[in-house]
């Protein structure tokens, strides 16, 4: 069987014990099953079993028109739904060679970045929870709640938005939304320090996460790890800068990378801290986009009633909160896509778990899993 990596483990041995972490376990972030071989507390091998949440997303898409697939993309990464919509819309527009109105571009960036903040907040909170700190989790949720309130005002939904459509967005910002978003940003920016005080620079937290679960840059690239996880390993790679889609090339922001400030480059602390720093960058982008947002204009490009892209295929990538979100769309000229494949960042991030967590303890594996920030809806699709 497969990649069984036998390892001679130092001097002392116990019997090998097989532990099933999940599917019913508090810190598997969904329904993930890890079959863990342990010796005492030390992990000798991990085999992830996924598919508990498989909803046949790709099979569904083969039976739906292009527009009808959008709500299904929501359900993949249910923490960062806006970005999923965004990625899908960009892919189809690329296939159709459509340009969307200027205003829509700004609106998309604003909601996508807001969603990125919400997603990162959840990631930070649950990582704290995984290493035993309960309070930061609720602090993060408190602030995430405000973003969800704004989204609710925007499109009525709090989790699965179906807001970004092909060629535009479902409707304009409601009256007062922009002001409320400014208010939120003013409220949120100082709160980032609060997380830092409570968790980031906590001695125990550093002990638990620094130097743990190091992913070297080359291993990360080989395993297709992207997004904040890859940046935590010290690779300055962000699609918003390196292969800009939408209008991301118009904004000024930094790409934080892991520096190994507390341990080695690419450890759990770096991955965590990259997300904290990204919160600030998101706020920067949203402020610029809000400032430049055109007042008037259509929120929908002129598209035919039935979307029939010409035959061909396209692979388009966008930067979701978890990394490179790719859509491979093959069209045969009809209004139903012949193949939609979603390349999910969490899928590849999880695939390196066995590689990086051998030799660590059970507690560390939970921390590593938390720092990778996986969403099972996206992995299983």
């Amino acid at each position, binding site marked *: 069987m497969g990649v069984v990596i036998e390892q001679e483990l130092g001097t002392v041995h116990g019997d090998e014990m097989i532990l099933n972490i999940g599917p019913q376990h508090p810190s598997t972030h969904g329904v993930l099953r890890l079959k863990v071989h342990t010796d005492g507390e030390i992990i000798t091998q991990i085999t992830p079993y996924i598919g508990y949440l498989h909803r046949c997303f790709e099979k569904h898409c083969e039976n739906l028109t292009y527009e009808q697939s959008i709500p299904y993309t929501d359900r993949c990464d249910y923490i960062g739904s806006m970005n999923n919509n965004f990625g899908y819309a960009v892919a189809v527009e690329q296939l159709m060679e459509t340009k969307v109105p200027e205003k829509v571009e700004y609106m998309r960036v604003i909601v996508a970045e807001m969603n990125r903040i919400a997603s990162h907040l959840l990631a930070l909170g649950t990582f704290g929870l995984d290493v*035993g700190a309960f309070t930061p989790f*609720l602090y993060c949720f408190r602030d995430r709640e405000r973003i969800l309130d704004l989204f609710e005002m925007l499109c009525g939904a709090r989790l699965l938005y179906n807001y970004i459509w092909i060629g535009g967005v479902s409707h304009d910002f409601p009256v007062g939304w922009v002001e409320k978003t400014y208010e939120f940003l003013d409220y949120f920016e100082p709160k980032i320090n609060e997380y830092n005080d409570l968790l980031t620079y906590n001695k*125990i937290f550093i002990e638990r996460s620094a130097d743990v679960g190091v992913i070297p840059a080359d291993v990360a690239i080989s395993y297709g790890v992207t997004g904040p996880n890859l940046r935590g390993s010290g690779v300055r790679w962000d699609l918003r800068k390196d292969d800009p889609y939408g209008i991301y090339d118009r904004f000024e922001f930094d790409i934080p990378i892991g520096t190994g400030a507390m341990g080695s480059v690419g450890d759990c602390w770096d991955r965590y801290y990259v997300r904290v720093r990204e919160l600030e960058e998101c706020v920067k982008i949203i402020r610029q986009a809000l400032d430049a947002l055109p007042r008037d204009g259509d929120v929908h490009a002129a598209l035919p009633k039935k979307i029939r892209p010409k035959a061909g295929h396209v692979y388009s990538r966008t930067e979701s909160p978890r990394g490179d979100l790719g859509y491979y769309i093959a069209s045969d000229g009809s209004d139903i896509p012949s193949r939609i494949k979603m390349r999910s960042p969490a899928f590849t991030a999880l695939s390196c778990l066995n590689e990086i967590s051998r030799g660590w303890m059970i507690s560390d594996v*939970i921390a590593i899993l938390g720092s990778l920030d996986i969403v099972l809806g996206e992995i299983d699709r």
Partner: protein
Amino acid sequence: MVDYFLETFSEITWLASSPNLSFVLAVTLAGLPIFLFMALNALIAVYAERKISAFMQDRLGPMGQGVGLHAGKWGILQTVADAVKLITKEDIIPATADRKLFIIAPFILFTASFTAFAAFPFNEYLVAADFNIGLFYILAMGSVGVIGIILAGYSSNNKWSLYGAMRSAAQIVSYEIPAGLSLLSVIMLSGSLAFRDIVAAQTGTTLAILPNWFILDNPFTFIAFWIFFVAGVAEVNRTPFDLPEAESELVAGWMTEYSGMRWSFFFLAEYANMFIVAGVASLLFLGGWLSPIPGYLEGNLWGIFWFISKVSFLIFVMMWFRWTFPRLRTDQLMRLCWKFFLPASFVTIIGVGIWDLFVR
């Protein structure tokens, strides 16, 4: 209290004739209030824990309105509702478990903390059983509990439970040493193991206005207090030392397979142990039932008040820890104990000795 009851019984003619019976009766009568107090302590502490955590986390906590199914105003009946739920819950023993040990485990754990509780003085006179080696007795009884934990974890035949048991075995026994050693400094200064003498040694003032508590006696006892308190938190398995039941790692650790009433005794014992650690710390270092302003607000009732408030404060600090800190890892926990607390507690003993002989 045992003595008091014995004296009372000796005046009752039919009881005075059989000393054994009157002795048993006296101890039983002294024991029942202890149980009531333990239950009450758990009830209030659980409610406090919920509310304190809620306030620390910017939320409301249990907020039921009205009596009945809604757990009372401000959720004050939440714990009672929990108790009712626990007692009406189906009692499940896994088919593969070691049945005998599984049943015995909560008995050991609860009985250990109950018997330890019996030696607690709430003021100079109010103590269920006044042993002249009270401190040693409490330490001894406190360390029996770990057997219950190991049995519970082992007998469940569950991997999570086994991990919890193994961790707690390593953890509790390790932290017992610094806890015991740090208490030695107080015993050296007071020259007694009876709480009455230890507290009596702390009367008066130091530095003109401050109370003459052992925590303020010299720098080494000050360190010893913190060693004892942190080691005590580790011994009662609370965050940041809650590895045996680490919920994000081991689901519920050694009590994974326990539910209903059997589990509630673990719970009761945990809160009782918190009280014991906080109680020993306040008796030995914080002057027990003595008033913080020497010469004022003293007396038996005030004594009870001061003792309970000191203990409550320390329990609050434990809760504060729990809702602030992440959890340590097993090897870090051991490192902290053996490489930091153990040498430090040696230093406190030597330091107190030198201070007492030469500096003072």
